[in-house]
């Protein structure tokens, strides 16, 4: 049911969107700026976009970043949803303790996590010969810090859910799996997707953990960007970011338009 949105809420929200996109607008504008060091405007140019196409390293890094993001998001969404569901539905020995420990990836400073994982991989390599630094080790590291974010969001949605519908489903003879798939999952899906989006964002922006767990040839964009930024934002980074934003916006709108409209608009839990 769509409620009428009061005007102050409209205005504030619009203002917030402008606020969120202001830095993006700057990035896009500066991707056309002929000044090399991000100084004042020195004329319009497309040469930074051109240099991107010629730069195999940056394209490879972009590819690595997306593959890493998708792979880690997929795994962490699965595991995190399970965790959120399990913590809110079932009781088991040590549940309180484990739930509390699951906050550690959220609390832990990046560098400490990076060092901890690096040492773990080094030990595993010495003892078992596994875990050569590269894409796999990065995915594992990313999944590790993404899981709690997904779990927390999913759990918060489950906590407020009315159990009556699930109980009704069971009463009517549905098995646990059927209940989950047809009753619970649709209700928590927004939380699962929100958690996945958070996870993806975390992965896309991670530098410290990625730097320490990557290997030669598996460099990601954040690592490249961080290095560039320390040297001064090269405008081709602005160009690359603009492309990412453009693709994301177009992709989102396209996907939304391609969807079937929701079936049961009027029914609420």
């Amino acid at each position, binding site marked *: 049911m769509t409620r009428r949105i009061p005007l102050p809420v409209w205005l*504030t929200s619009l203002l917030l969107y402008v606020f969120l996109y202001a830095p993006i607008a700057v*990035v896009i504008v500066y991707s056309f700026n002929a000044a090399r060091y991000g100084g004042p405007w020195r004329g319009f140019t497309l040469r930074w976009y051109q240099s991107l196409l010629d730069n195999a390293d940056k394209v490879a890094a972009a590819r690595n970043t997306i593959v890493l993001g998708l792979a880690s998001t997929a795994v962490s969404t699965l595991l995190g949803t399970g965790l959120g569901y399990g913590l809110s539905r079932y009781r088991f020995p040590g549940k309180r303790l484990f739930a509390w420990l699951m906050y550690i990836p959220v609390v832990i400073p*990046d560098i400490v996590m990076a060092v901890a994982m690096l040492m773990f991989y080094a030990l595993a390599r010495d003892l078992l010969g596994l875990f050569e630094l590269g894409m796999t080790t990065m995915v594992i590291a990313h999944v590790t810090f993404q899981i709690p974010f997904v779990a927390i969001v999913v759990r918060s949605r489950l906590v407020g859910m009315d159990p009556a519908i699930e109980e009704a489903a069971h009463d009517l003879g549905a098995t646990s799996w059927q209940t989950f798939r047809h009753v619970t999952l649709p209700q928590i899906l927004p939380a699962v997707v929100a958690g996945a989006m958070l996870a993806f964002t975390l992965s896309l922006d991670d530098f410290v953990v990625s730097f320490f767990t990557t290997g030669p040839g598996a460099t990601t964009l954040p690592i490249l960007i961080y290095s560039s930024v320390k040297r001064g934002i090269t405008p081709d980074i602005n160009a690359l970011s603009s492309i990412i934003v453009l693709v994301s916006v177009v992709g989102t709108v396209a996907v939304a338009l391609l969807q079937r409209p929701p079936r049961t608009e009027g029914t609420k839990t």
Partner: protein
Amino acid sequence: MGDPAPAARLRPARREIRFGEALTPLQGLARSALTAGPAIGWVTLFLLLPLLGIVLFSVLTRGPYGELQLPFTFGSYSRLAGFGLFGFDPQYPLIILRSVVLAAGTTAVCLLAAFPLAFFIAGLPGRAKGIALTLVVIPFWTNLLIRTYAWQILFAPDALLTRAAVAVGLAEEGMPLYPSAFAVYVGMLCAYLPFLVLPLYTAVEKIDWSIAEAASDLGADGRRVFRHAILPQVMPGMVAGMILVFVPATGQFVIPDLLGGAKTVLIGNAIQQQFGASRDWPFGSAIALVAMALVLLGLWLQTRTAGKRGEEGLL
């Protein structure tokens, strides 16, 4: 599986009814293992065990070349408490306090912004909801450093925003709007907003408005309707979002450095300095562990008080 009825009469299986299902303790355990098990196993293996290594580091000695050495010592912890080479100086407790204040301030600002946004998005028609929500997140797929540098440009002396501030009398002519506390909070809001909006939205989206309508029908004014009919419904999502902002924000240091002129030391700076330039891993580990312990303690306390009040805790 045989005939359950005679067995049930002989040895009544203790079944607990949860959410409409009658489960034996064993079944409950199996379910837990299936759902929460993989995640717990993963995090335990890849993070909690290595973390024990960090705990070990914190009680080792730093050798002259930055290597880790025996003997075991609590020197790092006593240094954290303030007993340095130049006498007693409580700089580290102050550093921790400063970080907590920044994180709390950020959470408050994000709350103020997230509520209108969440209600706005929840009020949009079907497909627009998804677009609007994803539009909130898309800026975060641009690198944080780049966005923060963009804020430096937006706060430069001759930028539109700065000139507006000068016109209103809030800023000096010719000076940029950063480094300043204002700039830092703007940067932090920009960085942490989706972590509050997303969970809050998932709660707002399923608000039962009939309760609010009933409340207002019964004579409650807008504020009371919000406080008693709406707020309790969004509480889980709101609290989840607050945690997801507050906890990581205590460790944030890049934004305060870039928009605050790197003039101050926060927990993140301190830890970075010890793992970085000073190569004192024992001390860095100690700082990290104490900071983490404090935040986790806070979470635990919150759960206990929430439990006593009959509300849902975070655990």
